[in-house]
């Protein structure tokens, strides 16, 4: 291998991967025609990449992905439904909190402040009934649901449908 051969080292690797541009290929082939050492290098590169190449997908692999599109879509829709459910719960919580503030604040302020005209009885009754009917979610529930919203992060990794994936580590 001559000093000039070092100029071809990268090109020989690219040649083995079938990634040479036409001009590079012409130059490389011209050099290979007169350089036995580089022909040996080229053969070694080809051999190692052949060994590193994976075999074609097996029948079992093809079966496993046969319904990939449908499965992925179903998973996506499930997540969206969970996220929408959480969003509704959040909005309901905010509305109930605002309503409670409207109802409770005048009563508290009324003790010290000027006398306000009494609120109409039917509104107060209805508001109180709504507040009574709503139950604050416990912190654990909020935390779990919030995790679902992290669509770009942990939620994907911890998807409950990925049981076979999780089982790989557990089995060992």
């Amino acid at each position, binding site marked *: 291998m001559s000093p000039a051969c070092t100029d071809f080292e990268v090109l020989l690797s*690219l040649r083995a*991967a079938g990634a040479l541009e036409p001009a590079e290929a012409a130059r490389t082939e011209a050099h290979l025609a007169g350089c036995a050492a580089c022909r040996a290098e080229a053969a070694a590169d080809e051999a190692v990449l052949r060994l590193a190449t994976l075999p*074609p997908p097996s029948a079992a692999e093809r079966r496993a992905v046969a319904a990939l599109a449908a*499965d*992925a*879509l179903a998973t996506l829709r499930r997540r969206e439904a969970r996220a929408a459910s959480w969003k509704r719960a959040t909005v309901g919580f905010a509305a109930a909190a605002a309503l409670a503030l409207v109802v409770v604040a005048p009563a508290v302020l009324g003790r010290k402040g000027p006398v306000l005209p009494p609120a109409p009885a039917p509104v107060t009754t209805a508001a109180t009934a709504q507040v009574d009917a709503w139950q604050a979610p416990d912190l654990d529930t909020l935390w779990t649901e919030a995790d679902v919203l992290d669509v*770009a992060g942990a939620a994907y990794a911890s998807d409950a449908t990925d049981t076979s994936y999780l089982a790989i580590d557990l089995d060992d």
Partner: protein
Amino acid sequence: MRMEDEPQKPSLRLVAGGVTPSRREEDSLVAAFLVGDDDAFGELVRRNEPLVLAIVRRYAQTPEDARDLAQRTFLRAFEAARRSLRSGPRAAVPFRRWLVRVAVNLAKNHRRDALRVLRAPLEDADAEGAIATAPAAHDALVLRERARRMRAAVLRLPRRQREVLTLRVDAELPFAEIALALGITENAAKVSFHYATRALRAVLAPEETP
């Protein structure tokens, strides 16, 4: 990714440096899906399934493992596409590039997790029967062992070399596209590929010495 007994499918490979018809179609499909068209989702998955599986299967322990990695890749890529579209057309990234980037990252994390346990590589599951019926059983066994060592060596390559090598050898992506997906120059990708090839040859070298 080659299928053993399927007819050759038309290539959907990206051509760097321009907006190809395939790219425009995919952009339209992504936009359609994001406004609720489930058929567009299915079409996008079917088009890109070979690419994604080609990237993740080297890291998978079982066929189901590969399927789950592929599914997670698609879901994350769709979310990434959704978010990038919200940021405006300037932030738009080709969907396939999202897929490649997400698949590489998931594979990297999966490899890190898998290194905690020692399992037979995916391809070994199918190789048993072939060895038992091969006429030259010894030669087949030697070849299989060399291939196994080589695939293990691929997973031990430095991260950048491994990513470039597998995106070329497994996914058969052009170096220009590999560079864009990994955020490096095309020349750096080619040099990394060369170093990866040299590192793998060094693994084989001891057995080639008399």
